[in-house]
């Protein structure tokens, strides 16, 4: 055990430990040598493993992801590291129509053990194309596992699991949780074991227990929800916070159990509001807890606008502690059965 600051060193430590053991793991990305190392998840790897194994690939998501897919067919285990999840848009169909589907469409002949690690999320003035979450899009694709860690401990354990999984996994690491110098940090120093360990996919974590209202959240919004819950406690509202951890597979059981206990659920997400993650969580919650819900599920998300650059505008759209608090408080105050 020792202290780690943020998910970035946690992910790169997991990568390092896996690379040390398995020569088939290599890293491919845009600027993995320098910026990937500084703002992303590949810190220290090129120094240790060299340019032949931690590789700056020629430009383009399409190219990088396609290279990874092709390399996987020869039995390698590519890790693709991109500085921004937004850039997945340029290689969209490599994931959607190939990496995700080849195992199925080949009748199980060809596997795609590709791990993709990208930085996502806003709140630092990154503007529309360097602030998006994107994970809802890929959670929608059959054949991709989706990891959304909120702690360094989880980030390391889930990355280790990803690297052992024979399937494609995308790890969406929120920038404000990376702990990299120069980037605001919403996390905290954590004790993280030095030895490798893995955390199974599909297990949500209850970050705070409560009885009046359940807040279901991912990544950076988990921490914001925990803070909102502390504030709610001052108003005698007992909020339970559930950290989804992996969107695919999704731990419906834990989420539903909490919903059944409290009867009121607020879903929080930093992705665009409509046709994404909050809707899916709501379906599952109402399907499993219908007879226990005392109010409709509510949500706090980005209100279907591109992320604006200017600070007051950005703060108006990215879910923060205040918006979570307000919505949860209002939800907790709703009288049962009146909509």
């Amino acid at each position, binding site marked *: 055990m020792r202290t780690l600051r943020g998910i970035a060193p946690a992910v790169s430590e997991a990568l390092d430990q896996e690379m040390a053991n398995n020569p088939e793991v290599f890293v491919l990305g845009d600027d993995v040598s320098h910026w990937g190392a500084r703002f992303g998840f590949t810190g220290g790897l090129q120094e240790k493993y060299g340019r032949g194994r931690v590789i700056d690939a020629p430009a383009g998501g399409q190219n990088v992801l396609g290279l990874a897919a092709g390399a996987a067919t020869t039995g*390698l285990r590519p890790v693709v590291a991109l500085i921004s999840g937004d850039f997945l848009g340029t290689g969209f169909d490599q994931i959607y*129509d190939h990496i995700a589907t080849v195992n199925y469409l080949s009748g199980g002949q060809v596997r795609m053990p590709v791990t993709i690690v990208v930085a996502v999320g806003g709140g630092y003035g990154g503007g529309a194309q360097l602030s998006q979450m994107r994970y809802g899009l890929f959670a929608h694709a059959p054949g991709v596992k989706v990891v959304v860690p909120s702690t360094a401990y989880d980030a390391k354990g889930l990355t280790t699991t990803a690297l052992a999984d024979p399937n494609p996994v995308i790890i969406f690491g929120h920038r404000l949780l990376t702990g990299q110098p120069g980037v605001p940090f919403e996390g905290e120093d954590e004790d993280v074991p030095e030895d490798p360990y893995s955390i199974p996919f599909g297990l949500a974590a209850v970050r705070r227990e409560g009885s009046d209202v359940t807040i279901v959240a991912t990544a950076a919004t988990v921490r914001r929800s925990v803070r909102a819950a502390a504030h709610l406690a001052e108003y005698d509202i007992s909020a339970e916070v559930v950290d989804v951890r992996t969107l695919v597979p999704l731990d419906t059981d834990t989420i539903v159990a909490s919903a059944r206990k409290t009867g009121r659920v607020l879903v929080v997400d930093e992705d665009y509001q409509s046709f994404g993650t909050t809707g899916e969580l709501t379906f599952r919650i109402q399907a499993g807890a219908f007879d226990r819900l005392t109010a409709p599920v509510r949500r706090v998300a980005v209100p279907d606008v591109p992320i604006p650059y200017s600070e007051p505008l950005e703060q108006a759209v990215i879910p923060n502690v205040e918006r979570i608090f307000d919505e949860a408080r209002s939800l907790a105050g709703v009288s049962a059965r009146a909509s």
Partner: protein
Amino acid sequence: MVWRPEPSAEDLAVRIAEAGLEQGSLLEMYRTMCLIRVFEEAIRDRYWAGKTPDFNIAAGPIRGLIHLAVGQEAVAVGACTPLREADVVVSTHRAHHHALAKGVDPTRLAAEIFGKVTGLSRGKGGELHLFDRNRRFLTSGVVGTSFAQATGAAFGFQYRGERNVVVMFTGEGAANHGAFAEALNTASLWQLPLVVVIEDNLYAGSVPKWGTQAVNQHYQRAQSHNIPAYLVDGMDVIDVYEATESAIGRARDGYGPTVVEAVCYRYRGHFEGDPGGYRSRQEEETWERLDPIPRLGRRLEQLGWAGDETRTAVRRMAAEEAIQAVKVAEKSPLPNPAEALQGVFA
């Protein structure tokens, strides 16, 4: 066009010797081309069963789209003959000839086209998603997406220190996708064991080359990425073989990628059901006179390596194998509907 004068018998013998071709290998190429031709015609026959008089894409024993390569056999066979089993072929939406030339079992190939559980992918992929792990054969139905994948496979061999080669096929239309340029850049930069074979059949769907391509050929683009390139007669299996064999040798020995651009023609529509009308009859007839199978037949005759009788026997054997494969495939069972939900994750 890259038509060359037909060689005299003497010149032909010299050329064949220089290419390192022997009677056995040339006859085997002839056999494979015949196998492909009959296989595709048998598939076509089954495709149209149930689709006449009124064409309905979802009716009959084979549903969906079928892209035949009749006329393009020389490209597939010329390019795949120099390959070893561990080498990879990455193909396109028009893939039967490549698959058979790479040694994919015709029965399992046909069964996949019929959507049978005995198919390469248990019927899940169908014609546009052909995979054969053992024969190291891959395809993609989304034009332009296979280029980086092929390059990645070549990288994989280099990384692992395996002396295998990747042959990546593409149509001339697909090669206008930006991903093609990205693949050339990467393969050249890293000196990957990649051989790019462009099947230039002059059309992408109904669109003629001049409609979407600024220059008439692609090979200069390869050269601008510092990749050597050949322009060959895609209706002449020997021409294709010569260029590809040397390219594959170079790739295997660590000298990096090569582009082989083979001008050819598809005798059928873009897919079955294509009513045509965008190509002139005169053009079609010109190319039919260049049919690569009789052309190789005449050469075998010229070389004194296979007379009428031998060639007829080879053709008959190949035809029987192809027809038998399609028959067995058609009789095989369909997958159980429950399989639909299995195998999303490994």
